[in-house]
């Protein structure tokens, strides 16, 4: 026997359940995981699961997890060959990718130029249009007193947006041509007053659309894998609550449009690694429009993994290390259905207010097709500094109906005490006949939750 080479050191630059997930994947490929943690997470379960911890800064993320130079320095100190950024934090920041590139350390994610190209809405839309991907019809307003022709070309309802607005300001919804003709001059005047520039544009509005996304994995050369789709339409204020793979009730034609569009983007960007192409799928027309590219592993990657039987995080690491990624060629629809529910440390009865403190009891369900991705255990003090995701409960079954039943049973068998969680809300959704019949649009959850019988 020859001596085994030293395992490659991989720095895990994240926290919470995704840090735990990445550490598992590092072990799976035979690597040595080192965690870059804030002081608040220096004794967390992921810290104990890693071979080594490097404390990069104090608890506030702005002084630790969000500082590319600290993460890059930790990678140097650790002797890492690659850095996995997880999701959020620095995962889509070209600055970290570039610092690492300069040190000859692999960034587990797309190239910096890809992060830039898809990093803002305008640039991402241009990339999509060039790649032949359907986008929401939109047009710049040349003359606010002559907009009927533009409006008719786009279709109603539509949104009137101030070019220089932002953060939801300067947006008006109009339902027909008369309303548009009356509102456009007024909106231009308001934009002039509010933003110092009266420029407007019109964009098609979809009031009852589903959120469907395609999982891609690019080889960095223009080719890669399309690993099915996910429906993430159960949302509260744009926060996903439940995701499933495959997206239910999608015709072969529509699915092909989505997957082909995603494939075109992978080719156009010469996309490297795991990514998600998000779309709105209208339930009132045949329209499918591009939303954005998420250039990272996503929270809900688990349902794709379970439905197809793959390990996307291990594939990311192998690609970064220059090894064969080990993904199979798969069909557009997986052989099983997987559903993920996000358990958050929030109180649904108090407008989903996050809470922190000690978890006194933690019990997970067991059984066939069950997976729990979490970093918590009994006695863990859930810190107040970061996001509220506590665990992801994932079930796999032979069809959607069985998967919904399994998810409901799994939620009911979960015991979490010491903190308010969203388990009760998830139980209500999973037991709701409209969710069980599926699919629902993104506008479904809000009114259903607000109108619930208490």
């Amino acid at each position, binding site marked *: 026997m020859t001596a085994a080479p030293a395992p490659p050191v991989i720095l895990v630059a994240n926290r919470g359940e995704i840090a735990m997930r990445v550490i598992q994947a590092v072990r799976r490929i035979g690597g040595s995981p080192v965690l870059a943690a804030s*002081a608040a997470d220096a*004794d967390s379960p992921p*810290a104990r699961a890693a071979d080594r911890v*490097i*404390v*990069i800064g104090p608890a506030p993320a702005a002084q630790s997890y969000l500082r590319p130079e*600290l993460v890059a*320095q930790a990678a140097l100190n650790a002797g890492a060959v690659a850095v996995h950024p997880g999701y959020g934090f620095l995962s889509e920041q070209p600055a970290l990718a570039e610092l690492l590139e300069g040190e000859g350390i692999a960034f587990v994610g797309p190239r910096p130029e890809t992060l830039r190209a898809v990093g803002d809405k305008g640039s991402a839309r241009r990339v999509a249009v060039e790649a032949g991907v359907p986008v929401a019809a939109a047009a710049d307003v040349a003359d606010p007193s002559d907009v009927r022709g533009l409006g008719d070309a786009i279709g109603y309802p539509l949104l009137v947006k101030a070019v220089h607005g932002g953060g939801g300001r300067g947006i008006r919804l109009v339902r027909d041509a008369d309303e548009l003709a009356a509102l456009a001059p007024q909106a231009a005047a308001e934009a002039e007053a509010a933003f110092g520039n009266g420029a407007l544009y019109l964009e098609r509005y979809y009031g009852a659309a589903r959120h469907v996304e395609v999982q891609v994995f690019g080889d960095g050369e223009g080719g890669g894998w399309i690993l099915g789709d996910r429906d993430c339409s159960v949302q509260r204020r744009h926060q996903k609550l439940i995701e499933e793979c495959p997206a239910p009730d999608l015709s072969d034609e529509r699915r092909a449009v989505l997957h082909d569009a995603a494939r075109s983007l992978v080719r156009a960007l010469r996309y490297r690694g795991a990514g998600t192409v998000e779309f709105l799928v209208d339930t009132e027309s045949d329209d499918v429009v591009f939303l954005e590219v998420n250039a990272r592993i996503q929270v809900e990657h688990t349902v794709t993994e379970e439905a197809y039987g793959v390990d996307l995080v291990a594939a990311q690491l192998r690609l970064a290390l220059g090894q064969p990624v080990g993904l199979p060629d798969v069909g557009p629809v997986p052989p099983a259905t997987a559903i993920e529910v996000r358990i958050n440390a929030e109180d649904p009865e108090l407008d989903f207010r996050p809470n922190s403190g000690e978890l006194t009891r933690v019990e997970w369900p067991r059984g066939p097709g069950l997976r729990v991705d979490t970093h918590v255990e009994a006695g863990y003090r859930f810190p107040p500094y970061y996001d509220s995701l506590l665990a992801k409960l994932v079930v796999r079954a032979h069809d959607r109906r069985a998967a919904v039943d399994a998810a409901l049973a799994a939620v009911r068998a979960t015991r979490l005490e010491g903190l308010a969680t969203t388990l009760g809300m998830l139980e209500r959704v999973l037991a709701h006949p409209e969710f069980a019949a599926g699919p629902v649009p993104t506008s479904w959850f809000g009114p259903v939750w607000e109108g619930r019988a208490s």
Partner: protein
Amino acid sequence: MTPREQPSWQDLLDLVTRLDGGSYDAVSVQVGDVSVTMSRGGALPPPTAPVASAATPAAAGPTTPAAPTGATIDAPMVGVFYRRPSPSAAPFVEEGAEVTAETTIGILEIMKMMSPVVAGRAGVLTRFLVADGEAVEFGQPLAALDPGGS
């Protein structure tokens, strides 16, 4: 180097470099009233912080200072700690020196950017707890400080 004078820091650096180039395991040199003691084994009093401390999960967190007693000056973030502004320059401060809150005791290199580390409070810097050029973590004690009566 004349024995009647205090050796300059450059003299000492030259001495240390020469001793380092020799085959000694441990060596002690007296120059006037300055003594230099070096060891490759790490069995030096005062000891530097064990190199393994950075490799012990969570051992170097801010709640578990390695200093036995008194106050410490802790690393404000991850980085590589240097006691001198450049490899050939004298250290910012010596062990046993009095410092004010604003005294620079070293620099922390983060991705080739240098940030000064200040004492943070007045007192006597009794000893350094990490070696020059050592990789350190946030909160890791860099030096022991005796605030004295101040």
